[in-house]
């Protein structure tokens, strides 16, 4: 059995205890997307404010709300730090890269995805050893993907 230290890395616990970019944004101009895992009850809401058009638009601000386990909440917190200031295209690439890290099947990787730097997010790699927790780690990212879709419309 893999050890809990693989799952609960110090940086993850830090984001759990002190979540970054916690809160709400006014909609509009921001968009709001709600995600939840019906089987376990975890909830994440992503507020996303972008400036510009299409994939070149820039993520000006992001806020995270919701409740859930340490993995879902810390993953969303780390995600918020990783995408702020990035372009929408870069955020989408990061989502694909992260889902690949989580062994999610069916991710359509694009040229350049392998060069995307995960940084602190690498700490979540240990989640893969606990397959039932993968859905916790990915919840925020799926919710962000929905929010990015909304900004495109």
């Amino acid at each position, binding site marked *: 059995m893999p050890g*809990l230290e693989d799952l609960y890395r110090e940086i993850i616990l830090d984001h759990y205890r002190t979540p970054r970019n916690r809160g709400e944004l006014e909609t509009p101009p921001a968009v709001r997307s709600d995600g939840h895992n019906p089987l376990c009850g975890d909830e994440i809401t992503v507020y996303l404010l972008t400036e510009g058009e299409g994939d070149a638009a820039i993520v000006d601000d992001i806020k995270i709300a919701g409740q859930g386990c340490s993995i879902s909440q810390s993953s969303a917190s780390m995600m918020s730090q990783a995408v702020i200031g990035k372009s929408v295209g870069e955020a989408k690439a990061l989502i694909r890269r992260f889902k690949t890290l989580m062994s999610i099947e069916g991710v359509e990787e694009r040229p350049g995805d392998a060069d995307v730097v995960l940084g602190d997010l690498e700490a979540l790699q240990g989640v893969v050893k606990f397959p039932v*927790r993968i859905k916790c780690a990915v919840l925020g990212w799926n919710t962000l993907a929905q929010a990015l879709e909304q900004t495109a419309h």
Partner: protein
Amino acid sequence: MTLDVESVRKEFPILSRVIDAMVEFTEHSYAPINRSSYRIAGEATDAYEGARRAIARFVNAPSPDEVIFTKNATESLNLVARSWGATNLGPGDPVVLTAMEHHANIVPWHMLAAERGIELRWIPLTPDGQLDLTDLDRLLDGAKVLSFTAMSNVLGTLPPVAELCAAAHDAGALAVVDACQFVPHNETDVQAWGADLVAFSSHKMCGPSGIGMLWGRMELLDAMPPFLGGGNMIDTVTFDGFTTAPVPAKYEAGTPPIVEAVGLHAAVDFLDDLGMDAVRQHEKQLTRYALDTLNERFGDQITIYGPDDVDVRGGVISFSFRDLHPHDVSQVLDQHNVCVRAGHHCAKPLMSVLGVHATTRASLYLYNDTDDVDSLADALEGATDIFGV
């Protein structure tokens, strides 16, 4: 009679005699039931009907013919809502449920509310997680159905089933009991309850998954329309229509879970031999020990939901531990080989009453002892080390 837990434990983690019975049957008597005339087809039919008789005895049903095999307790409750509800409920008809129901006893009624406009009423809870029956008369006024759990799968609460069935009947309502959690842990007597329809499930009583039961009074089952249509449930079929087989075949369309019925029969014999009174007494003592141990060791760091009085509760113990999320608690416990359920327990309305999104639930049964409870408490200490709270 007292329970010999030491010898019980030797038969688990999965009751080996259930597996043996299913293997034996599958190897030697595996055939469809109620149709063919060759020898093993007859053996299969006998085995399947033998399971029905064992279940009837186990819950003190007046006749085995009143026991219907379904896929699970959820299907049993859907059968009631669809079959009885479709012929007896219309717009504005009140159906009374309680605030501690499993989704299986909520969603089928919500579906009828959406389709036919029935009105749902809810019996509230007291602060310690028992049914608050103060307004029962008003809630039952004009009601067509009272459908309630005999034991909460979250709180362990044991409501006064016979009293509630009598109250339902006084109000002219049907008394439906979700006994899924109750039957494995208590002596069950559907006649003493005075219930009309009772749903329960194999997988909670040491039997295999894939088979559940509905017991009902014969006059009701005779009058209700069939639930699913197909083979086995007909008397005759023509180009113009069909007539139904007698109960219970009327409600058992298609090939039923035959091997599972055989396994369930072995589980029921096992429980019968132990004596359900002995099982209940064992669980009462163990639940008392668990409540005291957890409260003494963790004080205000743990919140245990449901009544403290073991006369009115069973051995499912839901709790919040410090401010840790139940998934994280269960992950730590798993590391210590303690398996608990973490989540909403298919009782989201109850979670909202408790003011939480999820709880951790330890479930005690006939194979657990005080060492297991101590292991649970020791493992909880481990959560502190990791999360530093």
